[in-house]
């Protein structure tokens, strides 16, 4: 089965100059936990709801003026929409993560592929990803 069959397509993105507050508001409105940061069609990084709590709030950042580019994770782990879900699951396991950014062949953004999507394709692969993931309780 291919990643494109299970992924969550049409992901919203934000620009690197988006403020921390605007990013959090967008996550709230969209009901998502992560947003890719895109500039000129290129993915620069990713920011999560956890980053906007544990870094932005814990470290006392100025939410109205600081840009997401200061807090985002720059090493984005991605897979291709046409890849097999077994390969994508292996990548999540190896990196101890539970969500991958999905790119098209021209490296433009295709969607997100998380363990919640994976579980709809294979219980065993999803279980293995959960087992390997660094636990955040």
């Amino acid at each position, binding site marked *: 089965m291919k990643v494109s069959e299970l992924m969550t397509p049409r992901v919203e993105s934000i620009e690197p100059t988006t403020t921390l507050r605007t990013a*959090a508001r967008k*996550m709230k409105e969209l009901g998502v936990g992560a947003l890719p940061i895109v500039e000129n069609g290129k993915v620069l990084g990713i920011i999560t709801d*956890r980053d906007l709590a544990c870094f932005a*709030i814990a470290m006392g950042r100025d939410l109205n003026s600081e840009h997401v580019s200061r807090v985002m994770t720059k090493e984005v782990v991605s897979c291709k929409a046409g890849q097999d879900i077994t390969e994508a699951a292996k990548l999540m396991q190896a990196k101890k993560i539970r*969500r991958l950014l999905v790119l098209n062949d021209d490296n433009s953004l295709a969607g997100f592929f998380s363990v919640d999507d994976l*579980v709809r394709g294979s219980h065993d692969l*999803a279980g293995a990803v*959960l*087992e390997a993931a660094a636990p955040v309780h």
Partner: protein
Amino acid sequence: MKVKEIMKSPVETISPTENTKEAALRMHDKHIGSLPVVDNGQLVGIITDRDICVRVTATGRDAVSTSVKEVMGKSVETCMADQDVNDAAKAMIDHHIRRIVVVDSKKAIVGFLSVDDLAKTSHELASKVLEATIPIH
């Protein structure tokens, strides 16, 4: 298999009158995503990194002057340490949650059980819990 054999213990907690910056800092330092809220030994709520993102970062509230009790979730599902893991998983499925607080007969917190812990015992059980939750991508 019993819950106590696979749960995480001891559990980091927070009091309802502490502020949300303190909560975010504790989640950051301890690498956790949620804290049970305990008042005089009684479990009164739960606060997650996402609660802080959508109810503090997104809204413009000041984290230091916002208390944990203002943003915490007040309904907390619990299970017992010597319950069977299948029963605990069923409670998670019924309530569409992926983590549950483990209490003793006096309602004191003794552990935390997450879908990741379940995955170490049964991929099938963990997958059913994941499938029952509403994913936040």
